[in-house]
């Protein structure tokens, strides 16, 4: 045990001596929270659009003012002919063009009917969809106003309640995702790389001839990262509660306990990768391809899993981060207890057992 | 500066923060001689050598290598020197031949020269069969001899060797020194650090560094006389005992 502790101490020295690495490891969650919390929104704002007004009358002028005054749009260009539309899109600045045909005001006044054409640049379908929706809503409001808000007969009203996240904050969705991402990165990638580094530089052999059991050496390397990850969890939780105002509705202890379980799963994955890789470069690429990308793409935090084709949905089940992400959402945001997450807990524990025994087996073969 | 001297230094100093690794050393190395640069671990040998090779900028003092100033003409110096570092520094993942071709090439040697020299070295080291073998699969002794051959591949005026025989068996060390003699006989100045005292006896002149300063400099025979010692080992121990700096 004493020897084991001295190994752990050595690993801590390695990490604390390298101030830059330490700085990045501890700064990473902060940067992610800031980026996700303040820079990324799925809501489109200030989209640059162009107007092609063939009519140029009082009605089109007031409609254009309505559009311009909304926070969704910024009129970047006034076009003069249909041919201009293509050119405007090719330059890539304008995302939508609103075309008002000639006699717009006249038609509206005399025939009670007029047309507006919205042409969206659908190379980004998401933005195109939203812009058309927003513009349509503004036009409909405008129409309502000119008809004096007359109430129609036989109207079905809908009343909408947003559960758990009434202000529709994006942070409710990504805080759990950031936690999964950071933990995986620190635990899996860093552990794998440090162990492989000792292999690469040959110091591993020196350690292996010491009287300490090989598996203990490897575990000693993982322990500092366990500590760093725990610090990261606290950073993320503090930032989300005090800066992003995402509450912790459930039990903090339960949240920490499941996070430690996930950290252990990530560490065992790191060990597994290090058993298979011979150079740091290989270890890094495996971590990136086999772990990081699936976590970002398939855990449900960037893209909804239910949209994916069946094979991907099946694959997503073996991504540990998916289960952890579900647990954090359930415990932290919905505020539910163990009974709501027993299935996920069971799966994560199973994964831990599996990865760990596989890693140990692989190490034994290599070290024997 | 004198035309006859391969290396001259005058109060050459290197500080790392408060720590003075090399403390005002002054010495001269004649052309064509084998100059032994001795000292305990941490005495400042490698730092001094790195300054002369243009790998490290001196804090103060003067030095010339091959008649060129180490401050201003360090890139020019590099054309005239060869270097073999403590750490084995050939490319593990290149073959014996590829390493030689690469280093010959970046020193601007012609293809004909590279070809001829490669054949010559392979023949002398009896490595013809291993010419296309990856360097990482060679035994350590061969690697060291190969590293030396690569360091003198471009026929430099001066070659710097930083503990070239560390971890090598006595037979190989003997062979290694034969190679050094051959190079010196061809007119190359050899500047070698070592902590094997028996190797010091092979040098024309020897300097002994203690705590960043040069405490003694002379031929091995005269040093032994001066310190009243039977071997260089004894000379070294007498000097090293005064060292304040702990060896690392």
């Amino acid at each position, binding site marked *: 045990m004493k020897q084991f502790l001295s190994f752990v101490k050595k690993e801590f020295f390695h990490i604390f001596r390298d101030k830059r690495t330490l700085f990045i490891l501890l700064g990473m969650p902060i940067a992610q929270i800031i980026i996700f919390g303040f820079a990324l929104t799925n809501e489109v704002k200030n989209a640059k659009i162009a107007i092609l007004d063939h009519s140029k009358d009082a009605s089109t002028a007031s409609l254009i003012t309505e559009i311009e005054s909304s926070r969704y749009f910024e009129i970047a260009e006034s076009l003069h002919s249909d041919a201009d539309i293509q050119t405007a899109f090719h330059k*890539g600045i304008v995302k939508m063009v609103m075309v008002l045909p000639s006699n717009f005001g006249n038609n509206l006044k005399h025939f009670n009917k007029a047309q507006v054409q919205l042409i969206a640049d659908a190379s980004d379908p*998401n933005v195109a969809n939203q812009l058309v929706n927003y513009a349509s809503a503004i*036009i409909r409001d405008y129409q309502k106003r000119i008809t004096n808000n007359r109430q129609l007969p036989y109207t079905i009203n*809908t009343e909408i309640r947003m559960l758990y996240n009434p202000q529709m904050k994006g942070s409710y969705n990504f805080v759990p995702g950031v936690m999964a991402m950071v933990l995986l990165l620190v635990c899996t990638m860093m552990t794998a790389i440090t162990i492989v580094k000792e292999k690469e530089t040959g110091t591993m052999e020196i350690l292996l001839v010491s009287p300490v059991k090989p598996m203990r050496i490897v575990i000693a390397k993982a322990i500092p990262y366990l500590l760093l990850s725990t610090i990261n969890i606290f950073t993320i939780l503090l930032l989300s509660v005090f800066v992003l105002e995402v509450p912790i509705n459930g039990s903090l202890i339960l949240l920490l306990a499941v996070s430690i379980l996930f950290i252990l799963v990530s560490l065992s994955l790191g060990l597994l990768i290090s058993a298979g890789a011979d150079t740091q470069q290989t270890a890094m690429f495996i971590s990136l391809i086999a772990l990081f990308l699936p976590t970002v793409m398939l855990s449900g935090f960037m893209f909804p899993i239910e949209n994916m084709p069946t094979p991907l949905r099946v694959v997503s089940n073996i991504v540990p981060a998916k289960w952890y992400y579900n647990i954090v959402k359930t415990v932290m945001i919905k505020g539910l207890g163990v009974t709501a997450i027993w299935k996920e807990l069971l799966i994560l524990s199973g994964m831990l057992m599996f990865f760990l025994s596989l890693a140990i087996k692989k190490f034994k073969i290599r070290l024997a | 500066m004198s035309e006859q001297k391969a290396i001259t230094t005058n109060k050459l100093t290197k500080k790392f923060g408060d720590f003075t690794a090399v403390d005002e050393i002054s010495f001269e190395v004649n052309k064509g001689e084998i100059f032994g640069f001795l000292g305990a671990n941490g005495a400042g040998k490698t730092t001094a050598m790195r300054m002369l090779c243009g790998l490290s900028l001196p804090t103060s003092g003067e030095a010339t290598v091959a008649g060129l100033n180490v401050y201003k003409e360090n890139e020019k110096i590099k054309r005239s020197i060869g270097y073999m570092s403590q750490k084995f*520094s050939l490319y593990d993942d290149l073959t014996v031949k590829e390493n030689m071709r690469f280093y010959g090439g970046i020193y601007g040697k012609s293809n004909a020269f590279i070809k001829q020299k490669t054949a010559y070295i392979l023949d002398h080291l009896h490595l013809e069969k291993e010419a296309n073998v990856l360097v990482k699969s060679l035994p350590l002794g061969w690697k060291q001899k190969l590293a030396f051959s690569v360091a003198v591949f471009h026929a430099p005026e001066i070659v710097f060797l930083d503990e070239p025989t560390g971890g090598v068996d006595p037979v190989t060390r003997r062979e290694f020194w034969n190679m050094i003699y051959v190079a010196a006989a061809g007119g190359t100045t050899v500047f070698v650090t070592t902590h094997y005292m028996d190797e010091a006896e092979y040098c024309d002149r020897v300097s002994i560094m203690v705590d960043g300063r040069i405490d003694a400099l002379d031929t091995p025979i005269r040093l032994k006389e001066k310190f009243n010692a039977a071997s260089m080992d004894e000379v070294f121990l007498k000097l090293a005992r005064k060292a304040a700096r702990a060896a690392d």
Partner: protein
Amino acid sequence: MRTLKFLLQKEFRQIFRDPSIIRLIFMMPVIQLLILPWAADYEIKNIKLSVVDKDHSDYSRQLIAQVTSTGYFQLAVYTNSYPEALEQVESGNADLILEIPSSFEKELIKEDESTLFLAMNAIDGVKANLGSAYLQSIIQDFNKEVRIEWIQFPRFSPETQIEITSSNWFNPLMNYKYFMVPGILVILLTMIGTNLSSINIVREKEIGTIEQINVTPVKKFHFILGKLLPFWLIGLVVLTIGLFISWAAYGIVPVGSFITIYAFAALYLFAVLGLGLLISTYAQTQQQAMLLSFFIMMVFILLGGLYTSIDSMPDWAKWVTRFNPVSYFIEVMRMVVLKGSGLIDIKRHLLIMFGFAVVLNSWAIINYRKRS
């Protein structure tokens, strides 16, 4: 120039001698391009709906039938108690509750007005927004049918109407893959380029071979260029593989010319490789280099405009994206691949990228010191 030849020869030999890296370099684009675009689909389908029907009327049944027939919603639970429906949301079996109150049909006919309740699991805000918008539009359609049933149409018609027609150019079928695949290709090139080059010089530092190079008269410029060119070529090969897969798997053929894509990619690779080499000259260990390049990459990719639109970012983040090479390349890819923009359209992007390449590489050359 001759020195450069020898440097290049050495780098190529070393790269191709490590089969694991070569395999990864070429596997990565194939796997990523085959899998990721399928996952990256923002269109919401299969929303799990739980219906609380307290009315049990013709109208309530018609409404439910209409909602479930659209394909967006899947009827997961049908009950008459709200708490039970809520439980299903908590356990993750349902995303959305539609509550039809007991006198829904009666009030609608007798009092001209009736109210439905929607409750949405809003942890995922986008999904909640889109889901409730879909449901509302279905309800509105249903409302229209009810009106037609009860009112003679002529009385209704003089209502002022602005007819909105919309069209989606460049991607009329709103295919998300057209949008994601070029973006993913950019990310791939960036990851491979920066990671490979950022590790490279540090690796020589760690092994010690850099000392041997530093005592040779090799020019810094040549040394950096010797490191850069092999990866530059690999990057272009990866791009070619990627474009091939985009065509073979997704039928994406650039509307613009390949020359435009390759011209920009060539400059872009110089910029990101320069960034990698710059990281490499600062880092002391491979671990540091990897972590640093990973960190920068993460910021660049997240703020690159692939996942969320740059227009909607706050000013400080927009300012950051101006220094983000990834965002320029993603924009250019979309312009060229989907809209057919030519070299003249991307003139500004080309100039900026040229600037990035020059600054980053010169910085790397200056910062690489042969003497400490």
